């Protein structure tokens, strides 16, 4: 299994290590646990080792036009040093991966992709590469990444950054700045629904970055956060997880992320004809949020039934939400989907457990825009 540069730190801090897509990473830390870690990110701040994420650079005179064809959002309207959320689709309108696009200019972009999909994404990009004009580099194993998230994140980063983090706006980034003397890329982005930053440094500087951020945050209540809380935070904040809300067959419109799909953008993109047709003809299924009223914990893959007992869909993500103290599910159901306030049930070990459809996201995100 692969290890990040912060591995020794996790082991020393009582991290309970699991295999996550071939990476040995902590699911939680013994002293805290998922619930405490989750609530600390919401109330103070948390530090995540996300060095397993993939980073790919796209450069060359043809970069902008070529990249645009592979992703759903409109990168032509981006300003330099903006970050944009994107989905990379198959011809059939399913999802290869979702990613962040960092724009340096029309001839240089940085893509940040899911760890489990780095190889698949790399092959997909390479397969679509033109003869010349675009150069790809997979810098995943050269790049360590930490996410500093929570209401205290800005104050903590300000103590060690060689720039004023309050000037960095939501979904923008800066490159070549110092974080505690380490050259870094810093973006105001994250996967928790809180304000926060994602910090990219050279691989061999990962542990040093980890130590100096934890030290800078010790008076602000900063603690390390494992993968368990990373998932519960993103789920509660309505952020999709590839493989759950997106699959080969479940596309971005059905998942409820049509805002990031520009079906009429210049030049089109892979999957566009299918998605455009879906949009025009109406969706055959869609994802709705559900709060379970009966006792029980919905989990991904469980059946979803309407009040008559007919199976109408599947849970894509489910679980306990610590900030809401409720058991919630995202359910992909046939259309017409029930409206907010209507009933659906999740079949948990052969028993239907009743719930009520609620708005997404479950948690009101606290971004600083």
């Amino acid at each position: 299994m692969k290890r990040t540069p912060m591995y020794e730190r996790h082991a020393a801090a009582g991290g309970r290590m699991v295999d996550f897509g071939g990476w040995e990473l902590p699911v939680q830390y013994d002293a805290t646990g998922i619930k405490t870690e989750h609530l600390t990110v919401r109330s103070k701040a948390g530090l995540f080792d996300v060095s397993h994420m993939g980073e790919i650079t796209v450069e060359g005179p043809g970069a902008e036009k070529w990249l645009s064809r592979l992703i759903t959002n409109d990168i032509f309207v981006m300003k330099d040093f903006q970050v944009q959320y994107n989905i990379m689709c198959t011809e059939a309108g399913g999802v290869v991966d979702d990613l962040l696009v960092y724009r340096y200019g029309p001839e240089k972009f940085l893509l940040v992709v899911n760890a489990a999909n780095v190889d698949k994404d790399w092959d997909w990009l390479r397969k679509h590469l033109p003869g010349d004009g675009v150069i790809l580099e997979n810098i995943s194993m050269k790049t360590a990444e930490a996410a500093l998230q929570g209401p205290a994140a800005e104050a903590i980063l300000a103590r060690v950054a060689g720039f004023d983090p309050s000037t960095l706006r939501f979904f923008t980034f800066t490159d070549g700045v110092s974080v505690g003397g380490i050259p870094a890329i810093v973006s105001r982005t994250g996967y928790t629904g809180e304000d926060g930053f994602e910090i990219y440094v050279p691989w061999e500087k990962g542990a040093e970055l980890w130590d100096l951020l934890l030290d800078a945050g010790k008076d602000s209540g900063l603690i390390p956060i494992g993968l368990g809380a990373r998932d519960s935070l993103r789920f509660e904040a309505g952020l999709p997880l590839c493989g759950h809300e997106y699959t080969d067959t479940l596309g971005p419109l059905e998942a409820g992320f049509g805002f990031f799909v520009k079906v009429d953008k210049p030049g089109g993109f892979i999957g566009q004809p299918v998605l455009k047709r879906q949009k025009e003809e109406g969706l055959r299924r869609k994802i709705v949020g559900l709060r379970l009223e009966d006792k029980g914990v919905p989990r991904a893959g469980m059946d979803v039934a309407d009040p008559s007992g007919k199976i109408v869909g599947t849970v894509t993500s489910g679980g306990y939400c610590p900030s809401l103290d409720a058991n919630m599910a995202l359910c992909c159901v046939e259309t017409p989907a029930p409206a907010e306030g209507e009933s659906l049930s999740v079949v948990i070990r052969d028993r239907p457990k009743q719930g009520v459809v609620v708005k997404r996201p479950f948690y009101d995100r606290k971004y600083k825009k």
Partner: protein
Amino acid sequence: MAKIPQDLRYTKDHEWIRMEGAMGVMGITDYAQHAMGDIVYVELPDTGREVRAGEDFIVVESVKGANDVFSPVSGTVAGVNGDLDGAPELLNEDPYANWLVRLEVSDPGELDSLLDAGAYAKLVEELEAESD
């Protein structure tokens, strides 16, 4: 180090049982609650249900996932701990005071095949050494 009371019998799957006359009182061990993490719901069986030794009949849901709990011996469910309904976190706080199920034990001889505290402590020690 996980707590392991001397006066209980244990399974390899981290359940404990204590006899009160013909009635068995069972729950999960300290090692089990720690491994599961924050417990958010306990699905208890119906009273009157008959179970065989080793049969899964309880589900303990933690933030991480669902965990099956197995019956240490064969018998009939005579009662469940209703306190856990509104406060499943009690299992994290004290998994020995907070039992799960009372069982009318059908074959007390099965108790002999369970681990005593010393044997269970050895098993836990091995598991903890592995994870270090």
